[in-house]
């Protein structure tokens, strides 16, 4: 008996809705971190303490923020030794 069970990937394709484990957590935040790359001393502490890997070693700058997933918790800003990260009120315009 040939069995065709729909896997999650099939359901995704059919319905167009993502059944993903990666939730769009960028939509959670109220404040977003903005890094002043001129004052950044490249210590990497913000990257270590981000629970979501939303602050990561980037290509253009030493650390960049992935705004798709950043939840706006503010740990990076609080831990930065030179306080070069500002938490700015999010505006969805």
């Amino acid at each position: 008996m040939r069995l065709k069970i729909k896997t999650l990937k099939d359901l995704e394709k059919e319905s167009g809705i993502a059944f993903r484990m990666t939730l769009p957590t960028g939509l959670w935040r109220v404040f977003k971190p903005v890094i002043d790359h001129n004052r950044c001393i490249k210590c990497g502490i913000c990257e270590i303490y981000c629970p979501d890997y939303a602050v990561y070693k980037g290509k253009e700058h030493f650390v960049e923020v992935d705004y798709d997933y950043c939840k706006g918790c503010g740990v990076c800003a609080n831990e930065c030794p030179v306080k070069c990260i500002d938490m700015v009120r999010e505006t969805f315009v």
Partner: protein
Amino acid sequence: MAVTKVLDGNEAAAQGVKLSRVEVIAAYPITPQTELANRLARFVAEGEIKAKYVTVESEHASMSVCAGASAAGARAFTASASQGIVYMEEVIWMVPGMRLPVVMCIANRSIAFPGALKATHSDSLLQRDNGWIQLYCENSQEVLDTCIQAYRIAEDKRVYLPVIFAQDGYVVTANAMPVEIPDQEAVDKFLPPYKHDFVNLDPDMPREPEEGPVDEIETESRYLMDIAMENAKKVIREVDEEYGKMFGRKYGGLVEEYRCDGAEGVLITMGSITGTAREVVDSMRSRGKNIGLVKLKAFRPFPTEEIRKIAEQVGAIGFVDRNFSHGSAGGGIGCIETARALYNYKYRPPLLGFIAGIGGRDVTPAHLEYMADKVLNAAKTGTVEQEVEWVQLRR
């Protein structure tokens, strides 16, 4: 070279485990299975089995250890009975869901309260919903053979479900009989090494990140397990055939019919009661009463097709249940399952439910003859006077 030794059920199971080249053993001692755990420890210490014997602190841990070992690629074995089974119930449910081919020996024993140290099938029948295959053994020889067959069935690519092989506490576990122990080389040909197709905890295997919330897969997973259980029927029959060809002993697949030709009525038994029942059938046949015997070896998957074929030929069926289900629709668990198997079928002979052997109470030939007479009576009259009868009540 096959040798014949006098072994009881526990020792036969230990020999079966040794021949199956099990790699991880974790069994917590509980009467009536303690000798099995002890014997396996001896084998490992003396080097007869090359395995890791983990001395666990509870049955819950023993099944967890077997699940972890099986996922990491080793053949695992555990054994338990009544209270231990109920204590490890949480982990028992996880193993078929993860499709891990663990094999467990249950030495049937009543579950408290009141409980007893002797046989009732409640502890193994408790697992009838969660996806474990269940095979019942009549004597020590069958225990040894079933242990080896169990790994072959569990690790079959069409199945990948864990297997329970059950033996009645004390009646089979502690009664010795001559048992032929097959040759290790022959068993190696019959049972290839364990390699799981899709579960392997190995950092070197490339893996993709899993996606999808777990709640969403429950229905489909359970459906696929249903299909695996259906496949298991075919696999059990095939394995039994092959074992019979290689080692000379067949058990009929899912059921064994004994002197059912021309039988007006049949008794269905599970486990050690079958041994006594064979004698009773012979004796009654010699006196002209046409009773037959059906031994139900596999309770899961339930042999619906075989039961239906038997129903075509006989006038009445009596199921001897060594278990109980308080408040059920009528009778013990076996009787209810048989009823469902026959409900929509065109041949539906009268079905009598007997409850006997609870708490290990000895099912004597007299009791079996009484039940057989009731069945033959029902076959003659076509009606059932009493649907469920507790046969051994002391009045």
